[in-house]
Structures are given as structure tokens and as C-alpha cells.
């Protein structure tokens, strides 16, 4: 790859001045830009920790388990928001991941070739909708629908569970989780669809040749082959759901205590920062930054894990010899 740089000093001296300056200049400039990207990451970690420092000193690690957020008594804790973040983003993941797999099966195996690209584009467009607009829609359309239709129905059938107990409310964990599902689905789908498309055609045809139905082929060839992509894509979607501040702040209602019922108002790390940061000062602002430190750790961890899983899957593509094709055949027998 070093073809453009001349090692021979005589030849190098014969290059004109612009080339002698241009090469190191572009190399240096672009290297600087790359270093800047790394510096921004470090800067973010440093600056957010710096802002949170008074709260870190005041509350220590006990902050994480304190179920309180009281500006009057100056007692702040992350537990209500950690709970809200975990509950809403895992519900979103539990809904979005299977949905994305189903959509990807449709887009790669079922849909007529002509409409694959348009449908995929439409689903990508879902990811392009600004989250503040999803939040607006959540407040004025989805929230009232949840309160009047979905929540009473869930309560009627599953009301004996504490998570479906309590009065219906337009602003709730559940509404936030659904908005996050809408956000995460196109992201997860685009990863899974791409992975599904890399499944070798001869493996699929072998499965069909053994008499598998389309679903049996998908279950025994496409899904096992794509497992790292499915897991990695889902975790990427989870990362997006964990970090979303605005849409969640709009629909979750802003309660500052843990509540078992999904119909109840609540808060998440990101949403609480977004709604309170502007109007707080002193220890409260530092505590919000502390929530930010926790959120950042969460988000980075999730992203690193997802990338590693997706990357591993790519490397595994090279030797897919361990794929158990005999499973497709045995399925044809009565169980």
C-alpha cells in the first residue's frame, strides 16, 4: 500500500514541491481528524465525570440504589431511573427483536423481488423520523389510545399481575416502551436483513432439496447462520433505546419513584436528565450528571458488546462448516 510514497531519496527530491508538501499535509491533517474523534470520547468521559464529581463525592456508589429524588431534602438517587431505563428498553427489545426477525424473513425470503427494496426503504424511513415527532405523536395519539383501549384490555385479562395493575394512564412506562419499540425496530431490522442476505444460497437450496418447507429452511439454515447478527443487531437497538431522551421524556410522565405498574408514570436516566437539567443547579445538577455517567457507562458497554458479537459473526462467516444441515432432514420425520 506504500506505492505512492517514494523511499528512494533521489527520486523523492525530483518530485515537485506541492507533492513533497501535499503528501505529509494530507496524512497529517487526516491523522489529526482521527485523533480528534478519539479525543472527543475521552473528553466526554472526563467532562461528564467532572460535572458529576460533587454528587459522586456526596453519595458514592449508594446513589445507584437510592430510590429517591428529592430536591428539598437534597437526597438524590438513580434507582427510579435505572429501573425505568431497564424496564422500558427491555420491553422494547422483547417486542422489537422478534418483530425485526419476522420483517427480515419477509424481506429476504417472502416478498416479491420487485417490492423488496421499496418496503425496506419505507422501514428505513421509520428510523429517520425525528424522535421529538415520535414523542409528539406519543403524547397526542398513542398515549390516549393506550389509556382508553390497550391498558384496560391488558388490565382485564392480566390484571392479577402487579405490572398490569393500577389505573390506566396516557403517560406511562408502557407508552414509552412502545415508542422505543418503534425506534428500535428499523435499526435492528437493517442489521438482521443484511445478515440474512449473506446466507449462502447453496445452503438454502440444500435445505429445500431435503424437503424442508420455507419455515423449516429459515429455522434450520438462516437463523442459526445469522445468530450473531441477530443478537448483535438487537443489542444495538437496545443501545439506542437506552440512550433516547426526548421521546421518552415526552411520554413517560416524569415520576421520580419506582412503581411496579407499567401503567404508571416513571422516568429513565436519559429522560430525567433532559427534562430537569435546564432548571437545576448545584448538587441537583451534579446528580443529573451522575445519572449521565451511569447512562454513558451503560451505553458504551452495550455498544462494545454488540460490535464484538457482530464482528465475531462476520469472521465466523468464513468457515461455516459447523452448520448442522442434517437437522433439516431429521425435521421431516414425525416427532
Amino acid at each position, binding site marked *: 500500500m506504500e506505492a505512492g510514497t517514494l523511499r528512494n531519496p533521489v527520486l523523492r527530491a525530483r518530485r515537485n514541491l506541492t507533492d513533497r508538501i501535499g503528501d505529509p499535509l494530507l496524512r497529517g491533517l487526516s491523522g489529526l481528524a482521527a485523533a480528534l474523534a478519539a479525543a472527543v470520547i475521552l473528553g466526554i468521559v472526563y467532562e461528564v465525570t467532572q460535572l458529576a464529581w460533587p454528587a459522586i463525592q456526596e453519595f458514592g456508589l449508594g446513589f445507584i440504589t437510592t430510590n429517591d429524588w428529592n430536591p428539598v431534602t437534597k437526597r438524590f438517587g438513580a434507582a427510579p431511573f435505572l429501573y425505568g431505563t431497564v424496564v422500558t428498553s427491555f420491553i422494547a427489545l422483547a417486542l422489537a427483536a422478534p418483530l425485526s426477525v419476522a420483517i427480515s424473513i419477509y424481506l429476504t*425470503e417472502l416478498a416479491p423481488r420487485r417490492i423488496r427494496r421499496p418496503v425496506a426503504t419505507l422501514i428505513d424511513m421509520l428510523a429517520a423520523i425525528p424522535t421529538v415527532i415520535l414523542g409528539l405523536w406519543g403524547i397526542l395519539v398513542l398515549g390516549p389510545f393506550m389509556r382508553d383501549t390497550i391498558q384496560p384490555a391488558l388490565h382485564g385479562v392480566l390484571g392479577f399481575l402487579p405490572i398490569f395493575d393500577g389505573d390506566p394512564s396516557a403517560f406511562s412506562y408502557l407508552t414509552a416502551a412502545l415508542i422505543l419499540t418503534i425506534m428500535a425496530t428499523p435499526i435492528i431490522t437493517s442489521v438482521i436483513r443484511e445478515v440474512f442476505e449473506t446466507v449462502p444460497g447453496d445452503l438454502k437450496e440444500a435445505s429445500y432439496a431435503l424437503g424442508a418447507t420455507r*419455515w423449516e429452511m429459515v429455522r434450520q439454515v438462516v437463523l442459526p447462520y445469522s445468530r450473531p447478527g441477530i443478537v448483535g443487531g438487537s443489542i444495538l437497538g437496545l*443501545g439506542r433505546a437506552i440512550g433516547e431522551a*426526548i421521546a421518552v421524556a415526552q411520554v413517560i410522565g416524569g415520576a421520580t419513584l419506582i412503581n411496579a405498574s407499567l401503567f404508571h408514570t416513571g422516568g429513565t436516566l436519559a429522560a430525567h436528565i433532559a427534562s430537569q437539567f435546564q432548571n437545576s443547579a448545584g448538587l441537583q445538577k451534579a446528580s443529573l450528571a451522575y445519572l449521565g455517567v451511569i447512562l454513558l457507562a451503560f451505553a458504551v458497554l452495550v455498544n462494545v458488546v454488540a460490535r464484538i458479537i457482530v464482528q465475531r459473526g462476520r469472521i465466523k462467516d468464513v468457515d461455516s462448516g459447523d452448520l448442522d444441515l442434517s437437522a433439516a432432514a431429521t425435521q421431516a420425520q414425525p416427532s
Partner: protein
Amino acid sequence: MSADPHTLLLDRGNLERRRRVNRAVEAVSIAAAVLAVAVLVIVVGSVFLKGVDALSWHFLTTPTALFGEAGGGISNAIIGSAIIVGIAAAMAIPVGILVAIHTTEFAPPQISHPVRFVLDILNGVPTIITGIFVFGLMVEGDKQSAFAASVALAIVMLPIVARTAQEVLALVPGSLKEAAHALGIARWRMTVRITIPTAAGGLITGSLLAVARVAGETAPIILLSSIVGQGNLTDPGEALASIPYFIFQASESPKPEAHTEAWAAALVLIAFVLALNVVARAFYARSRNRMGA
């Protein structure tokens, strides 16, 4: 389980059940795709139906009224958004493309892989955290400014621009580069005259998608450019209004008139973002054709 291959092909009588399962799964897949497209249609449809009535020339060309009064417009928010996003793009697009040039043209794998990783991590940082970072950097002890918001949005854009640019630059045919090398052209000249023009369509795509992404970004703006004065302001040194923040504020209001204005502003924003996406895809298609990929 190892079975005699011949017995596998016999119909053992459960074919009907297997076909039923297959049909059920196909139906679920189709339903999932229909659901996703339906949600898009419902959201965009809601915005259009509820926003189109409030949308008028007056609404687009009048600044927001004093707090609590109806009858204002969003001209100040449109101007503010254009300035904030414009400055962010001017910072992030050149830097992002430079990062991509470094990893694809200059850096050895020991460097380009970590840089890629850093970009992915940066892409995963929640935008509210980016907001806190820039708040600590530029606003604390000083005042809010549109420029601070631009810096935050530029940080959000950077990994998007750089990652798409990396992918596009990697698609530039090796034969073109080798031809340039064979002619003894310096590396920087080859990059500027051959690699970048060949990849231009894709680079524009990545940049437009990044602009579309941050045009609707609200979280950093709440922290960095939300306390704004009256009228059509243009100085990036002070806080400026923006469309996403206008929508956010109006959506939190209990008044129905505010909601109507929020829908109308949402219609403006969604039309801009979706149009940008469509244009970006067109550039990408053209670029792929050009590179024969």
C-alpha cells in the same frame, strides 16, 4: 440423529401439519412487515393531517409569539435550525471525510481498526450525554449559544459521516488507484483528484443522512440553546430557536392551540428530513452505478 437418507424423503403423514406451520409463520412475517409500514404511515399521516391546516405562509414567516400567546409562527426557529445545523455540518463533514481518508488511504490496520471502533462507540453515545459534555465545555460559567449546540450536533454527525465515507471510499475500484500509482502520481493528488471525485455521490449521501439525522435532534439543544430572545435572531453567539425544540416545548404545553402549532412544525421538519433521505438515496444509487458496484 443419523437416519437412512431414503427414509427422510418419505412422506410420513405430517406434511399437512408442517405446511400449516409454514403458512402461519409466513402470515406472521407478512403481518410484521405490514405493521412496520403501517406505523410509518400512521405517524406521517397523523403529522400531515393535523399539521396541514395550521400550516400557512404566515406561520412560516412570523417569529414565535411571546410566551403563552397564540398566533405566532416558526420563522425564528427555521432560521435558528438552519444556522445551528449549517455550522455543525461545516465542522463535521470535512473532519468526518478526513477521518475516513486517513483510515482507508493512509493508516495501517493497527490504527484504522481502533479508529473505526472509536467511531462506533462515539455513534453509540446518547445525544443527551453529548449535550452534557458541551454544556460543561462551553456553557457552564458562560451562557447558552447556538454555536455550542452546533458543536454538539457536529459530534453527533461525525461518526455518521466518517463511517459512511469509509464504506464508500473502500468501494472505489482498486484498478483506478493502481493506474494512478503507475503514473507516479503523489498519494495526496490521487486522493483529491481520483478517489474523492469517484466516491463523491456516496460522500454526499453520508453527509445528507447525517444532516437529516441531526436536524431533528432535540436533546443537546435543550441544554445548549433553549433560552432564546424574541424575534428572528441570527447571531450564533447567543441561543437561537430551533424547530425540534419548538415542537418539544409546544408538545409539553397543555393548550390545544400549542399542539396544533407543534403538528404544523412537525410537518415542516418531517418533510425536510424525509426529502433529504430521498435525495441522499438517489445520490447513493448514482454513485454505485458509477463505481460499477
